[in-house]
């Protein structure tokens, strides 16, 4: 029997949740026994190659590309997990949600105290994804099946959740593993 496939992505996140995933240390060898990794920053596969059992979503959606990727994950994964506070509630990027978009862009590219941009140019390359009006938690864009909060969720939290899912156990985090910080 082939192993279940797992894909993961970091949208509007900081990759901290993926770092936390690597923090499972030597248990990663056990994980490899249990699953095959499909698209993920860990193996640098760029697109989901075949149907996956689990998709791990780090980060919310702050731009159109995030939405595009999230759609790909929803279409190709049986179970989607928001892992980390950004996917779950927008996180630090969502702090811009009550600041007008234009003000955010100007602050980032022109007016910020650490910005050096004598020509005052805002990059407009078509390759740069357009920002969304606000940062959306992943479940406001697609259906999400499980949430693992934390900034980041601890390696133990991720391990507990993944092994539960992969062994058909209910995902119930013990008290010490459910944290928002």
């Amino acid at each position: 029997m082939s192993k279940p496939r797992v894909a993961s992505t970091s949208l509007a996140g900081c990759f901290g949740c993926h770092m936390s995933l690597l923090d499972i240390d030597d248990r990663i060898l056990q994980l490899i026994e249990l699953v095959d990794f499909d698209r993920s920053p860990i193996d640098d596969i760029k697109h989901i190659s075949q149907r996956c059992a689990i998709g791990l979503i780090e980060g919310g959606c702050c731009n159109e590309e995030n939405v595009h990727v999230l759609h790909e994950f929803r279409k190709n994964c049986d179970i989607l997990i928001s892992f980390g506070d950004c996917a779950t509630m927008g996180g630090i990027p969502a702090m811009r949600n009550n600041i007008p978009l234009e003000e955010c862009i100007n602050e980032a590219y022109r007016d910020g105290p650490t910005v050096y941009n004598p020509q005052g140019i805002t990059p407009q390359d078509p390759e740069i994804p357009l920002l969304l009006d606000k940062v959306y938690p992943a479940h406001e864009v697609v259906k999400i099946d499980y949430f693992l909060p934390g900034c980041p969720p601890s390696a133990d939290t991720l391990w507990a959740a993944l092994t539960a899912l992969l062994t058909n156990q209910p995902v119930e985090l013990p008290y010490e593993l459910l944290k928002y910080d």
Partner: protein
Amino acid sequence: MSTMTSKIEQICARYDHDRARLMDIVREVQEAFDHVPREAFGLIAEHAGTHRVEVESVVSFYSFLSDKKQGDVVIRLCDDIIDRFQGGDEVGETLCKALNINFDETTADGNITLEKTACIGMSDQAPAMMVNDTVITNLTPEKIPAIIEQLKANPDPQTLITEVGDGNNADPLVQAMVKNNICEAGPVILSDYRKDAGLRKTLTMTPEEVIEDVKTSGLRGRGGAGFLTGLKWALTRSSPGTDKYVLCNADEGEPGTFKDRVLLTERADLVLEGMTIAAYAIGAETGIIYLRAEYAYLRAFLEDKMNQRRAANLLGNNILGKEGFNFDVRIQMGAGAYVCGEETSLISSCEGTRGDPTDRTPFPVVKGYMVSPTAVNNVESYCCAARIADMGPGWFSSIGTGKSTGTKLLSVCGDCARPGIYEVPFGTRLSDILERAGADDVACVCVGGPSGQMVGPAQFGLGISYEELSTGGSMMVFSNQRDILEVTEAFMEFFVDESCGYCVPCRVGNVLLKNRLERVRKGEGSQGDLDYLQRLGESVKYTSRCGLGQTSPNPVLSTLKNFRPVYNALVKDNGSGMNKSFNIMKAVEEASAIAGRRSEIFHA
């Protein structure tokens, strides 16, 4: 600044620097300066013996008070769904155009402010608006330019009155264009009655006998909750305390209700008689009529009625020669807050604080106004009590049904040929009322206002009573041309606006309900959203602190129950896992405009 100081000192002195009269003080400051300036908060606090933040707390609570400078003339267009369906939105657009401003703005010359307001109790002659305290009814867009011209020429809104209404609306102290629209007079309240006969009989009895009669009559509160009036009086009487109070709830804020407006206009004496009987029964010397700001045009008239009664020894000391029976009444003006119709909020407001409700242990009958035993009754309840005193409890209980005795005043409005007041015996079937009101194309009736139930044809055979269709008087008729969920959403907006925000479920839950309903109406919802509405609505209903919160999800819950097919037609699950409510094109619209390019990934 010094004129402000002296004016504020003057106003506070008129109310004996009494913190409990803060409502009156800030209302007068607002009248004097067209707002309550923030720099006056400290001064008012100093001269009323309170804190600056307490003044801010009151001013920021009531929608008719403002800390921003307003015009001499404030136009408040009634934004109730009935008014909107009768053309209120078009009237609003014309007002904006004629004044060249939007709502919540003041004209460039600073003279006229335009606002929207919740139901002003004129749903039988909608659309209507208030110009300061003057009510203008039966508006059409065509009438607006002339009204604005007139106001620009003369800011006294009374000059807009060309024709006064019937009955006491024509009284020199009222001079309102409001019509009574009494369509059916029942035996208890709107038929001819013997003035003060009930009070005279009362004074020959002991207070206990009076209470016993009210108990025997089966009279229940007419505001909607239906608590037994006799029991309320008995509890107030037996609660320890030397000062006891009789409060009249004339804060008729339930959208679609206007029967108290008519009672205060045509039965003011009966109301005061009922209050006096209550005072005798419970042993109170002070009464307060809490009059909603929307009915300020009746204030002078009511004050005059009270003066006449004082002159006739029907109020004051040793009333009608009854040694030791002293009772007098004052009017407490509200300032635009639906929640103040909730009895504990009403008491808070009378005490000069924001109208937050308080916990109902202890109940007002034990610790109410000024922490003393207080009976708060509806305008109509006092009228009933006075009639019971005259005609006897047996006469009263022979009308209506076993558990709902007497008659009920209904304010019928909306899609019917004869909107107005119907006094009917309890038990009268809804279908009969609709027929009499000339409503022949009816999809939905909202019985009891937004806090009541929205019912469909399957329920039209039910009777108006506490046991079947309970109502404080509001009865809004909606024809098949109306979008029932538009009505529902308007009602939820109303509760969002009127929640005091004290408790979490009402403050937050209603916003969430309104937003999710909006999503469903746009066709962006799924079956799961209907479960969401149901579960959330139940939590708000179950856990909210006061009657407002506990009834606020009723528009959603009763339409989910009685109009489920309307919802089902709007929701569809496509099974893709993509949320319909997330619209990528809309989400990138702003960035696209800023960047001057379209999305490379998503094309419309």
